[in-house]
């Protein structure tokens, strides 16, 4: 089942902060975050495994609330280069065979950073 992302779109001025949420109705094994710029491929940002850990990548960090089946992506002191569409991909479990895990992506959050 497709995770729900919010907001659908957000406009920020350089230096402002933003939070993007990703919610699932199913128990999650992991959450993956990707950023896609216009006309390019999605690029991996970070992965969070169940356990409520928080990860960071420069000024971008994320958390995973296992009880709520929700992950949040935090962008602080936004830069122009942060513009793009952010996708969360959720994994609800591992299959019986190696390599059988499957990501279901949300509809994306379009982030625009303006000067």
């Amino acid at each position, binding site marked *: 089942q497709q995770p729900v992302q919010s907001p659908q779109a957000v406009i920020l001025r350089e230096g402002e902060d933003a939070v993007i949420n990703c919610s699932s109705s199913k128990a999650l094994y992991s959450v*993956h975050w990707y950023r*896609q710029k216009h006309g*390019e*491929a*999605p*690029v*991996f940002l970070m*992965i969070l495994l169940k356990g409520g850990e928080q990860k960071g990548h420069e000024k971008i960090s994320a958390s995973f609330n296992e009880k709520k089946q929700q992950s949040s992506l935090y962008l602080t002191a936004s830069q122009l280069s942060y513009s793009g*569409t952010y*996708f969360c*991909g959720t994994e609800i479990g*591992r*299959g019986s*065979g*190696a*390599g*059988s*895990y*499957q*990501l*279901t*992506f949300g*509809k*994306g959050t379009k982030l625009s950073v303006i000067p």
Partner: protein
Amino acid sequence: DTAVSQTPKYLVTQMGNDKSIKCEQNLGHDTMYWYKQDSKKFLKIMFSYNNKELIINETVPNRFSPKSPDKAHLNLHINSLELGDSAVYFCASSRWGAVQYFGPGTRLTVT
């Protein structure tokens, strides 16, 4: 060195034609995927192969047939193309349970 490559980058064809998209990865991964991204940017898994074995086969028309000649290659053949097949098709690869790396995409336009 390109990690995941796809050819062609652009593909314009007429309805009813048959076309193929090729994907190669040089990351040593054992799992490869095909995704379809429509005009609304929705990214949907189509197929997944692990060690040349089909693992995920989502509900896609049987006009779409993936083929994996070896672990480093996953091709997508599409028969009798329809207008609704127009989209960007992304190939991706990963090690089991790990991060997926996407290719640059193939923009397919069916006229």
